[in-house]
């Protein structure tokens, strides 16, 4: 029985690790983001903002947000990561919006009252349950629709 248990532990170790590293590629996450934008009739901006992060690391997108458009921001992260926090801030770093999740997805919409450059920041949560140096993909996909014609 002890032998069986040791095989089982080895199997589980490899299974969990290989699962953790390969749940989804960055491109697949981006495609999921695009699909969400399309379902909601938003037109993607065509930019690929994707990077590998580990816990406590941050990725940012600087983007002009134009009055007269409504935006949808889709952040998707690899399931191996312990969730993340997102913020939308102006160039003086004043936070306009923030949210966090222990899940692997946040979607939010934003309608600017004036045209300005904004910064979307995504920080991967800290977790004692996740291996410290485990990296996973974080993807920020942005779409817009015109609301003034």
């Amino acid at each position, binding site marked *: 029985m002890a032998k069986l*248990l040791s095989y089982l532990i080895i199997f589980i170790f490899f299974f969990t690790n290989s699962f953790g590293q390969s749940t989804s590629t960055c*491109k697949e996450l981006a495609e999921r983001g695009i699909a969400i934008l399309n379902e909601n009739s938003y037109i993607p901006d065509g930019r690929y903002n994707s990077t590998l992060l580990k816990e406590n690391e*941050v*990725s940012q997108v600087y983007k*002009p947000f134009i009055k007269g458009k409504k935006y949808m921001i889709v952040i998707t992260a690899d399931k191996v990561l312990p969730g993340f926090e997102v913020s939308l801030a102006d160039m003086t*770093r004043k936070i306009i*919006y923030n949210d966090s999740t222990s*899940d692997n*997805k946040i979607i*939010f919409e934003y309608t600017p009252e004036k045209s300005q450059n904004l910064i979307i920041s995504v920080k991967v949560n800290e977790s004692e349950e996740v291996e410290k140096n485990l990296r996973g993909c974080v993807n920020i996909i942005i779409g817009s629709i015109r609301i003034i014609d």
Partner: protein
Amino acid sequence: MKKIIILILVCTFIPYFVSSCKKEKKTDNNITEIDSDSLAFQKKIEEAKEIFYSLPAPHEVAELLTNQQNDAYFDQTLLNSLDNSEKYTTEVAKAYNLGIYSADLSYASLFEQNQIVIKYMAKNKVLAEQLGIINAFDDETLNKLQDNINNRDQIMRIISENFMNSDAYLQENNRQDIGAMILLGGWIEGMYIAMKLTDCTTKNKKLVSSILEQKLSLELTVKFLEDYKNYDGLRLFYDDIKNLYEIYESIPTEIDDKGLLTTKESDFIKICKKIEKIRNKIVSLT
């Protein structure tokens, strides 16, 4: 012992099943400004591992021509002639002019110039392949474009997804410099076409306002180029772009009663001339 094994199995596999069944989280549209109480997070965002400057893709720049019913129209003479493509022999010339042709393609698409769209799409495909961007403009995309030629939003969606695929390919192959040159070329061409459609006057107030609003993109472009000055191809236009930004910065603007940005015609002409100079420099690359 059996209990231990079962316990290990349950603890190991349940999180995967749980995580794969979680629902999509979508917040509401009404975002209110909040106090910045997350100081730790705010401090952390100063130390980003990766920064993306989301410069507008060529189709986004071309889109400003059709925003707000600004009386823009199609003028084929404004496009960079396809005949010029033969002289683009270096990687830098190909990348910048792929951006130029992409913006031309988007401009033609928005005004339903079907034959021109197909010709420019074919040329974009050739240039992209020469730059090593595999499957950038495949036959399926071309067919989708033809099928949706009268559906403006769908065309924008197809071009956008196509652009994202190229962007992804270049980033994943550490060729961000090529991607940036394509974006810069596309941005300049979009601005050039918009400028030409105003005849460098301030009569078309909506289009002029859109052009003035592009100062935001320009600000990010300058920041981006500062970070990527080590790349020869990007350094090539750094001074020009910075100078253009300085011109924008020096021009006083006002917001009129319709919420449009306005400026004096003499100042607008300064932007116009600089854009034309940069654009001509790009199409003359070899």
